[in-house]
Each structure stands twice: as structure tokens, then as C-alpha cells.
């Protein structure tokens, strides 16, 4: 049985719950009290991840940290369709890696702004928000041209990939950090599309989309 070291309000933990639900992968959650307990910096947790960060996934003796790395692993091992991380398509793999790195930048900005506002972290919130807006402009432009070209997702092809799952949570939670999405209409439509993926689940602060059928 897979164990996910998990925190309910973490977008990076949520993206793993989301992909595992989409792929119908069974797992158990080990709750780590990130805020206010700071258990991710406790002695027992640092033995599991010396970086003191969530999430961590343990599967069959393999211990993995870093949400994006875990998405790669889960899709490679458990996605029987081969579409979420298409190992035989170099173009897509390159694009996916690019957006996984982008997801880390979103964590460093939009998620940081949310930590500052909602969990009182000592972070320069204005700098984080302005960094997030710069990223969201890039993302909105990419998605708008995607719509013009008939592409619904971050990467080429007609199926979402782990890149969409990686970037989704902290974009969808940005308003918790004081980052409005009013100026990003193509992002708002993409959020709806992700929410309509079969197997989609929510977390606190993320609402389902209207059924569009």
C-alpha cells in the first residue's frame, strides 16, 4: 500500500491525491501537521525527508520527495493509458519537464503568498504576488494561443498530462494569497477544463466546475 505523507491544505499534497484518484490508485494518508504544528520540521519527519518538505510518498520501499517527481513516478508506474506521462514521446516529455519546473516557480510565488496570508509565514508577500502575476501572464498567453490552435492543455495533444496536474493547485488557490485571476481569462477557462477531468476531486478552497455536457 502506498503511503502519502500528507497535509490537507497543501496544494502540493493535493496534486498527488488528485492524480491518484484519477488513476484509481489506492493509498493511505499519513497526516503531517504542517501548520500550526510544524511537524514537517520535526526530528521524526526529517528522517523521512531531510529537506523538511511535504509531500513524501513511500511505495514498496521507495521513498520519494518532491511533488513533481512523485507525479512522474505515479504516472509512469500506474497509468495504464500511457497518456499522463507518455514515455515514448520526446516532444511531450520535454514540454512536461518545462511545465513541471514552471509548477515549482508557481509554488515559490503563488503558494508563498498564500502561506504569508493564511498561515502567517514570514515571507515578502508583495514580491511573491508580483512574481505570481508575471508567471500567470505567461501561462494565460500560452493557454489563449492553445485555444486558438485547438489545444486544451499545457502540452501538445488532446489529453491532459501531469503538467496540468502539477500547475493546477496553486493557480486555483491563488486568491487565498491575494492574487486575483481576473486578468487571466484563458487560465480561468483552463481551470474549468481541469475540473472536468474524470476522477477530479476538490480540496478546501477549490470548487468544482459546472457540468458542461
Amino acid at each position: 500500500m502506498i503511503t502519502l505523507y500528507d497535509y490537507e491544505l497543501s496544494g502540493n499534497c493535493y496534486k498527488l491525491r488528485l492524480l491518484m484518484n484519477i488513476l484509481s490508485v489506492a493509498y493511505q494518508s499519513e497526516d503531517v501537521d504542517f501548520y500550526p504544528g510544524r511537524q514537517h520540521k520535526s526530528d521524526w519527519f526529517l528522517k523521512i525527508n531531510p529537506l523538511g518538505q511535504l509531500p513524501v510518498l513511500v511505495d514498496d520501499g521507495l521513498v520519494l520527495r518532491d511533488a513533481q517527481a512523485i507525479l512522474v513516478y505515479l504516472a509512469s508506474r500506474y497509468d495504464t493509458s500511457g497518456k499522463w506521462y507518455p514515455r515514448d514521446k520526446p516532444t511531450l516529455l520535454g514540454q512536461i519537464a518545462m511545465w513541471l519546473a514552471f509548477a515549482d516557480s508557481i509554488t515559490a510565488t503563488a503558494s508563498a503568498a498564500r502561506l504569508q496570508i493564511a498561515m502567517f509565514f514570514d515571507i515578502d508577500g508583495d514580491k511573491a504576488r508580483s512574481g505570481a502575476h508575471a508567471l500567470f501572464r505567461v501561462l494565460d498567453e500560452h493557454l489563449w494561443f492553445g485555444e486558438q490552435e485547438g489545444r486544451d492543455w499545457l502540452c501538445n495533444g488532446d489529453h491532459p498530462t501531469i503538467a496540468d496536474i502539477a500547475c493546477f493547485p496553486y493557480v486555483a488557490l491563488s486568491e487565498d494569497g491575494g492574487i486575483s485571476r481576473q486578468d487571466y481569462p484563458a487560465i480561468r477557462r483552463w481551470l474549468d477544463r481541469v475540473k472536468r477531468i474524470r476522477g477530479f476531486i476538490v480540496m478546501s478552497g477549490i470548487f468544482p466546475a459546472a457540468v458542461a455536457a
Partner: protein
Amino acid sequence: MHNCRDETLVSRWFPVAASTDLPKRHVFHGQLLGEELAIWRSDDGAVNAWENRCPHRGVRLSIGTNLGNELKCRYHGMQFAAGSGQCTFMPAHRDMPPARALCVKAYRCREQDGFVWTTLGATAAFDTSPLSEGRMKQLRSLPFNASALLVAEALTRYRFSPTTENDLAVAQVAPIDAFTLQATVKNSVVMFLLQPVDVDRAVLHSVLLDAVSPADHITILRHHNENLTALRRSIEGTGARLLSARPEGADNSSAYRKLVDGRVQYGMAA
């Protein structure tokens, strides 16, 4: 944020979204003259531009659910009818007809020439759209962190080139009124329509008319998007300096003075 609101502006019609911004069962988050809008298309194709505020507890309707013929508030599940904005269903009082006063403020709006147009006023008839002639190509609408006035001023210095690389044919952009500008070169016309979001923000909607170009559709869209985002970078640099120079008390900054005067001019020219 309401000092850009005068009667002339309130009664004017502005584009507030592109038609393609409203796919099925979506709710678009817009804003005009400081007023936030929830803009959505019902399943019969009609567009709605509503005050972005549930009359029950004030939650933004742009996070609500488009049910096809009603918009459902995310907070308490109240449903409001397309067209009128009248509440049709209250989950906590399902056998009671909702009070007539429980009604979203629905602004007048219409869809024409690829845009959703709205006015905050109650009376003015819809102007003839300036776009109704010829073949049209809608460019990507761009939000600016700068007033519509600043964007309009900068556009008069913008060099419009209708096609892509190595094209020496460029044209000056000339204002038609405070929110509409135009340029013509080699039988190509570009129309710029400015949507004043609030005093410090605007959306620039751009349309090519009768554009004849060998380049493909996406290449043309990218060409203009690149040029207009470059324009945005230059304006926002200026705008940011203006805003950071905004004084607490008396103001002797000529640039800021010009902004204030410009806001007054809006009403005169619009």
C-alpha cells in the same frame, strides 16, 4: 476607485469580453469603470453581464456555477435567472417563492461583432458598433496595469504593422474618441477599443478589418500579440513610476496632474 465615473461614461457602451471568452457553462470575471461583473452565457446563447455580487450575502458570482439557465451562487446555492437576475430558488426555503427584491443587478448587454458590450447606464441605446464593416480578425485582448488614458496616449505613438517580419509598411494610430483608435495601412485597418477597468487598469481589445496577409492566422495573432505586449511593457514601466510618485498630500508632479486631468477629459471627449 470611482472618480473615473461620470454620467457620460456611465451611459457609454464598452466591450467587456470577447465572445470566445464565454464557452458553455463558464462564468467570466470582468470589470468596467470600477464595477466588477460576472459575465456568462446561458444555454440558449444569450449573454448576461451582472453585478459580481450575490444579493443575499455579497459573495462574488464569478465563482458561482453556470447551470445553463440560472447562475447558482457558490455560498448558499441561491439560483438567479438568466436575463432578469431574479432569484428562482432558495435551497433553504424550497417551497417559498423568492422575494422579488432578491435580484441580481443585471446590466444591459448585447453581443455583436465578436464582443460582449455592456453599459452601466439605464437608458442609452446601443451605439452602432464601430466594427461592423468588412472581414474581421479579433486579436488577443490585453489587460494593462495602466489607465485607459495612458494606454490611449501610448497607442498614438504605436507603429502598427499589419503583417509580419520585414514589413516596412507601418502606420500611425489616430484617436477617434477617448476610447477608440484606428490605423490604416495597405488596405488593412486596425481598430483599438479601450475598456476602462478602473482608474488604474484597462483592457485593450484589438480588431483587424479587411486584413489581407499571406501569413497564417496564428502567425498574425502572434505578431500583434508580441508588438502589443511590448507596448504594454513600456507603458507599465511608465505607469509604475507614476504610481510610485503619487504623493500623499499636495501634488506637484506634472505626470500625475496629467493623469487627473485626463480623467476629467474622459467625460468631455467620450
